[in-house]
C-alpha cells in the first residue's frame, strides 16, 4: 500500500520537476518555431535574466521594479541580437544559425559574469516552499514550490500556444521558420519578428530563471540545467509549445521512476542518460517528436 503511495509520489514530483525543464524548453521552442533558429543561448539567457533580476534586487530595488528592468534589459538584448547577428544571417542554413547562437551564448555568459560576477546569489521571491502531506500518515508529499512552478509553466504555455495558433503574428512567425527569403518577399518584417520572439523568449527566460534561481540560487550552473531542456524539447517536438510541457512531464516522471525502479540494477545515476534514451525511443516512432510538425518529405 505504502509502495503505491510512494510510486505516486515519485510520479507526481517527477512531473513537477519536469515542468521546470519545460520552462527552459519553452524559450527554445518559441525561437525555433518563429525563426527556425535552434537557440543554444536560451540557457544562458535564463541565467542572464535571473542575474539581472537578482542583481537589481540586491541593489535594494523593489521586486516589481527589478523585474521590469530585467524585462527591459532582455528586450534590449533582443534588439542587439537582431541588429548585430540575425540580420546578417538571413536565409542561412539552420546549422549556421545554430552556431551563431552558440557564439551569442558565449558572449552573454562572459558578459553576465563580467557585470555581475561569478558568485552565487540567493534568491527568494516568496514562492511558498512548504510541503503538503496526503495519504495515511503523510505517505505522499506534495511540494508547494513544485506545484507553483508547474502552474506558472502551464499558464505560460497556454498563453503562448494560443498566441501562435490564433494570431496573424503567430502565422507570420511560422512562415519565417519555413523560409526566410519567402517570408521577406511577402513583406513579413523579419527584423521586428525576431525582436518580438527574442523578447518573449527573454521574458520566458526570466520566469524560468527566477524559478530555478529560487531553488538553487542564481549561479552559473544554471546554464548546465538548460541542457536537460534538450530531451524535453526533442521529445515534445521543436515546434510545439504544448509539446514542451508534455515533453517535460514525460521526461520528468520517466527519469525519476527509472532512477528509482531501474537504477539500482545498474548502480544508479542512470538519470543522466535516461532522458535522452527515452526521447530517442519516442523519436523512433515519431521522428518529429510527439507534437512536432510532420517533417515534409517530397520530391
Amino acid at each position, binding site marked *: 500500500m505504502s509502495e503505491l503511495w*510512494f510510486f505516486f*509520489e*515519485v510520479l507526481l*514530483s*517527477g512531473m513537477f*520537476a519536469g515542468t521546470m525543464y519545460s520552462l527552459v524548453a519553452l524559450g527554445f521552442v518559441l525561437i525555433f518555431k518563429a525563426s527556425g533558429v535552434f537557440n543554444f543561448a536560451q540557457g544562458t539567457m535564463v541565467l542572464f535574466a535571473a542575474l539581472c533580476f537578482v542583481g537589481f534586487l540586491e541593489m535594494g530595488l523593489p521586486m516589481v521594479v527589478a523585474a521590469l528592468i530585467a524585462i527591459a534589459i532582455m528586450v534590449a538584448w533582443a534588439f542587439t541580437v537582431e541588429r548585430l547577428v540575425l540580420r546578417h544571417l538571413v536565409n542561412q542554413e539552420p546549422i549556421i544559425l545554430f552556431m551563431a547562437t552558440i557564439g551569442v551564448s558565449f558572449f552573454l555568459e562572459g558578459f553576465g*559574469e563580467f557585470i555581475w560576477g*561569478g*558568485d*552565487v*546569489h*540567493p*534568491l*527568494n521571491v516568496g514562492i511558498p*516552499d512548504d*510541503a503538503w502531506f496526503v495519504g495515511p500518515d503523510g505517505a505522499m*508529499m506534495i*511540494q508547494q*514550490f513544485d506545484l507553483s512552478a508547474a502552474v506558472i509553466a502551464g499558464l505560460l504555455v497556454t498563453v503562448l500556444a494560443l498566441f501562435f495558433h490564433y494570431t496573424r503574428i503567430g502565422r507570420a512567425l511560422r512562415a519565417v521558420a519555413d523560409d526566410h527569403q519567402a517570408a521577406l518577399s511577402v513583406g513579413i518584417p523579419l527584423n521586428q519578428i525576431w525582436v518580438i520572439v527574442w523578447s518573449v523568449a527573454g521574458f520566458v527566460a526570466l520566469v524560468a530563471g527566477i524559478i530555478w534561481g529560487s*531553488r*538553487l*540560487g*542564481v*549561479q*552559473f*550552473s544554471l*546554464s*548546465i*540545467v538548460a*541542457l*536537460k531542456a534538450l530531451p524535453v524539447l526533442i521529445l515534445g517536438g521543436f515546434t510545439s509549445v504544448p509539446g514542451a510541457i508534455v515533453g517535460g512531464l514525460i521526461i520528468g516522471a520517466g*527519469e*525519476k521512476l527509472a*532512477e*528509482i525502479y531501474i*537504477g539500482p540494477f545498474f*548502480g*544508479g*545515476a*542512470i*538519470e*543522466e542518460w535516461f532522458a535522452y534514451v527515452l526521447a530517442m525511443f519516442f523519436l523512433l516512432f515519431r521522428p518529429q517528436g510527439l507534437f512536432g510538425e510532420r517533417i515534409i518529405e517530397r520530391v
Partner: protein
Amino acid sequence: ADQIYIPNLVYKTGPYGPSGTPVAHGVADYLAMINMRDGGVNGVPILYEECETGYKTDRGVECYDRVKNQNGGAVVINPWSTGITYALIEKATADKIPILSLGYGRTSAADGRVFPYVFNFPSTYWNQATAIFKYIADQEGGFDKLKGKNFGFVYLDHPYGKEPIPTLDILAEKYGFTYDKYPVPPASMTEQKSIWLQIRRSKPAYVIMWGWGAMNATAITEASNVKYPMDHFIGNWWAAAEPDVVPVGEAAKGYKGATFNGVGTDFAVYKDINALYDAGKGTWSKDQIGGVLYSRGLVTGAYMVEAIKVAQAKFGNRAITGEEMQYGLENLDLDAAKIAKLGLTGLMPPVKVTCDNHEGQNPAILIQQWNGKAWEIKSDWIAADTALVRPLIEQDAAQYAKENNITPRSCS
C-alpha cells in the same frame, strides 16, 4: 632568480567558480601578506601568478605547461582539481615540480615512496571518511551503536565522489552497519528528486555527502524539502562552505560538514591580513574574506611558505627550485607551537610530513555546523583511523607502481 615563483591554477569562472574564487583569494592574500610583512620568505620575494583553468583538465594541463618554466621555474603547483591533479602527477614528477593537492586529488599519493612529488596533507578522502564515522559514533555513543544502522551516501558520480566507497565498505563490515549509495550524475547534478524521495522513504540514520559545485546546494535544499533532520546530514570538506548553504537560505540551518581548517576572522594572522587590505593590497574585498574556502586558501599559502622555509634552511636563503621545494614539503613539520607563532592557531592543523607519508602523520578533521549566518566549529580534532586506511593507500599505490613500471623509492 631572485624571486620565488608560485603559480596557481585557479578557477574563478564557470559553474564551479563560486567555490574556486575564495580559495584563490586566500592563497593570493597570504602570499601577498608575506611579501608585504616580511618582504618575502627570508627576504626572497614571492612572485604569485594565477592561470585560469575553468576546472577543465585540458586547460589545466596547458596552464601547467605554460607556467612551469616561466620566471625561473615554478616551485610548486596547486592544481585545485582532482582531474588536473591526476593529469599532472607524472608530468610534474618528470619535471621535478611538487604538486600540492591540499585535501583533494589522488588519495594514494599519500604513499610518498611511489609519489615523491605529490603531497596531499593534511588529510585524504579515505581518512576523512573514517573520521566522519568516528564523529557519528561519538554522537551516537560509541562504535557499537552503529551496528545495524543504515546510512545514506550521496555522492557525485565521478572519480572524486566514488573515492571513499572502498573505505566505507570496510567500515560497514567492521562496524556492522549498512549504507545505501545515491550517485548524483555530474551532468544533471541539480536534479536529485529521486534520491531524496528514496531517502525520505528509507530514513537513514545519517546522510553523508561527497558533493561538489551546485550539487551541494541542491542536495541541502532537497534534504530540507523532504524534512530530513539537518544535523544528521554531513558533507565532506568540499561540500561544506558558504556557497553551498547561502543560496539555500534558512533551510540549510543545522547542516554539518567536515573541514580541516578553522573558519572566521578571529585569528591572529588576520591582523596582518587586515593590514594588507588597509594598505589596499588585498586581492579581494574585505567583507568577503574569512569563509571556509578562503581560510583553506590561507592555510595552503601558509603550508607553502613554511615548506619554502624548510627548504631554505637546507639550501640557503635564496629562490629555491622545485626539487628543493620537494625536500621542503617532505620535511615539513608544523607543530602547535610553530603554528601559534604564525598566528594560525585554530586555523590549521599541525602537520608532519615524511618521506613515505605525504598526507601527514596525524590526519584529523573538525566538524562544523551552519547556523544560518556562519559556520561554527562543533568538535575538536577528530583523528582518522589511519590503521585502517594506510594499507589501502599502499595497495593502490602499489598497483599504480606496477602499471607504470615505477620502482618505489626507499624511505628508510
